[in-house]
């Protein structure tokens, strides 16, 4: 009886506690505002200023104002079409797509959706596309930060943006071996709107990084001095003022955004790497296929240089202390020691996730993050993987690349069938 009333009291307390918690409420996990790239800010300070020195705080609001004028807000995105209706950037991004992906999640009476990005992407990639959504810290690998403008799985070489088709493939297929799921069930127009929204966030982030990079070259003066043309007393600006203002606009926005960033995103299809046809031996039923795989194995150890990172047996135990570019971007700053969290506390304080080494892929599993079609593997070898240590194999002929692809595809099945003479040429044995 006594036990009963005690437990009843216990439940009552819990219920009251829960109710109280519910009443106080929790802050929304991420309010719909873009986040400032503070990691880049801290990095630029460390690169260009003496210890303890800081850029003027005003610059943060100035960058925010320029960014908002050009790209709008998460609820009301816009895009700078400098040449009006004639602007070739209309092929890259359409305002309709942005509206569909942006804003709060809802479906109206005619079943046209908005807020797709917040519904499907923001919890991992963040409202800003900074790869720092609520779940980010607990995912391995971390969700992609779009702001560097780097994409791993694409048909174009390094520094060339992916095509819409490349991004669509990722959305449709997901990325096996990571937390990125497939969005195969979404209708085509919704996928397309998300693809364009990812490009929007990427260009936005690239431009913000550019602006932050410019700070070191300033000496207290603003990036764009609006007071030159918008006189506080309402007076007419002089001709010199207008000319000076236009120079600033061309330098910051014309050169920094239009030429450096948007122009590169125009027609990425022209940069797509040609995939040469595979030789007949690539076919698993061809009588010379076994020799072809053997040739691929020799290349794996010699010309391909693959074992340096992926290990002699392909389990990915070669180089284990490299970092990817998204991490290298800030850990290369002076005095950062990845083994000592106190050495990068100032970066953690503004949201940088703890650095984790990049793992060379274990090739004995049949998971290929960028797709398991032979063409996908061919592209990874030919172009390398942007943002990672995986280099491009310019020295190999297309037949040689196909041989390595054949060997890599055979790897998951080799251990059990390999006879003694086919053991790795290098005697380092791996136990794990």
């Amino acid at each position, binding site marked *: 009886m006594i036990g009963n009333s005690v437990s009843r009291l216990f439940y009552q307390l819990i219920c009251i506690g829960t109710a109280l918690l519910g009443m106080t409420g929790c802050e929304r996990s991420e309010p719909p505002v873009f986040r400032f790239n503070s990691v880049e800010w801290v990095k630029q300070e460390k*690169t*260009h200023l003496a210890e303890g020195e800081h850029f003027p705080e005003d610059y943060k609001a100035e960058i925010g104002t320029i960014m908002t004028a050009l790209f709008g807000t998460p609820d009301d995105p816009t895009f700078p079409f400098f040449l009006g209706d004639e602007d070739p950037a209309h092929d890259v991004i359409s305002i309709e797509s942005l509206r569909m992906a942006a804003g709060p999640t809802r479906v109206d009476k005619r079943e046209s959706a908005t807020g797709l990005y917040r519904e499907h992407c923001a919890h991992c990639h963040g409202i800003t596309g900074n790869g720092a959504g609520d779940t980010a810290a607990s995912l391995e690998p971390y969700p992609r930060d779009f702001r560097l403008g780097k994409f791993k799985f694409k048909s174009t070489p*390094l*520094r060339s943006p992916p095509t819409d088709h490349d991004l669509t493939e990722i959305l449709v297929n997901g990325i096996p071996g990571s937390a990125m799921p497939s969005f195969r069930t979404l209708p085509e127009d919704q996928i397309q709107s998300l693809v364009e929204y990812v490009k929007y966030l990427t260009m936005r982030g690239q431009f913000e990084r550019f602006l932050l*990079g*410019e700070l*070191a*070259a*300033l*000496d207290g003066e603003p990036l764009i001095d609006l007071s030159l043309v918008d006189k506080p007393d309402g007076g007419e600006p002089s001709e010199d003022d207008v000319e000076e203002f236009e120079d600033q606009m061309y*330098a910051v926005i014309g050169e920094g955004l239009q030429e*450096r960033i948007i122009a590169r995103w125009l027609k990425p299809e022209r940069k797509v790497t040609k995939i040469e046809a595979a030789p007949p031996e690539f076919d698993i039923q061809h009588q010379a296929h076994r020799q072809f795989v053997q040739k691929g194995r020799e290349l794996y150890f*010699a*010309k*391909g*240089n693959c074992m*340096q*990172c992926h290990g002699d047996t392909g389990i990915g135990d070669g*180089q284990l*202390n*490299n970092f990817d*570019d998204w991490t290298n971007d800030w850990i290369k700053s*002076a005095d950062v020691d990845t083994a000592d969290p106190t050495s990068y506390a100032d970066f953690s304080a503004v949201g940088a996730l703890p650095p984790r080494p990049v793992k060379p892929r274990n090739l004995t599993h049949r998971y290929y993050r960028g797709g398991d079609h032979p063409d996908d593997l061919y592209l990874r070898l030919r172009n*390398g993987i*942007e943002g990672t*240590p*995986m*280099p*491009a*194999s*310019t*020295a190999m002929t297309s037949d040689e690349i196909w041989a390595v692809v054949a060997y890599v595809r055979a790897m998951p099945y080799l251990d059990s069938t390999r006879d003694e003479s086919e053991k790795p040429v290098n005697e380092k044995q791996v136990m794990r």
Partner: protein
Amino acid sequence: MKRVFFCTLLFVLCVSMNSLLFAQDGWGNLTGQIVISGDAPVNQPEDVKDNSDKAVCLIDGKVPLDDGVVVNDKNQLRDVYVMMYTGRGADTPDTYHPSYDAQTKVKLTLDNVKCRFVPKASFARPGQTLILKNSDNVGHNCRIATMEHEHNINIVKNAESEIVLGEESDKIPGEVRCDIHQWMDAIILIRDNPYVSISDKDGKFKIENIPAGDWKFQFWHKKGGYLKTIEVKGYEPDRRGTIELTIKSGETLELGTLALPGDALTK
């Protein structure tokens, strides 16, 4: 008599040829020499760890010292970029001297020798071909990452690969790395404006055929960033490490010895 006349003629010819070749009408040169004042930073041994290619990478059986700051016995500093400033608000010439036209057609070699990039610092023009060479008996990769350029090429042992650089220009040098041997690093500047000189082993630099006029020049080193504390007689570098120089037609502007305090090189 004839002999004296001939010698004089030859001398006059040489002098005039020299000025024709190196300081033509409307163009001038710039020279100087960079020396560290006080103590140069001491280079630490490279972080080779237990890399499996240790045998190839050691020099005389020992772990090599980092080559971040290279000075000779007179403390003269190598690898300083002296370059016409092309950053924000810069005034730059519209045309370059024709002698630079051939530069883009020359193939530039970047070698790997005992797990070290040779040369440590280089300058290339957009569209130029780079030969990525590997003289070592181990594989390397060559990762070029500047503001505007990016390449990551696998280079087979004792072999070479060629790449053609894109058309974009950088404002400051970027880095070259090898992911397999992470202590390996080099610097490269890729830009169209050819008025760049990298100080040699004696700290000397020379930029030829600069259009006559007032131009800003910048001093930059990997370990010091913008060298704002460099001492140039008669000039006061700003926070970007730039000074404005007047280049006179047919003349060589000699800056003489430029002293750089050793504590500027700590990055």
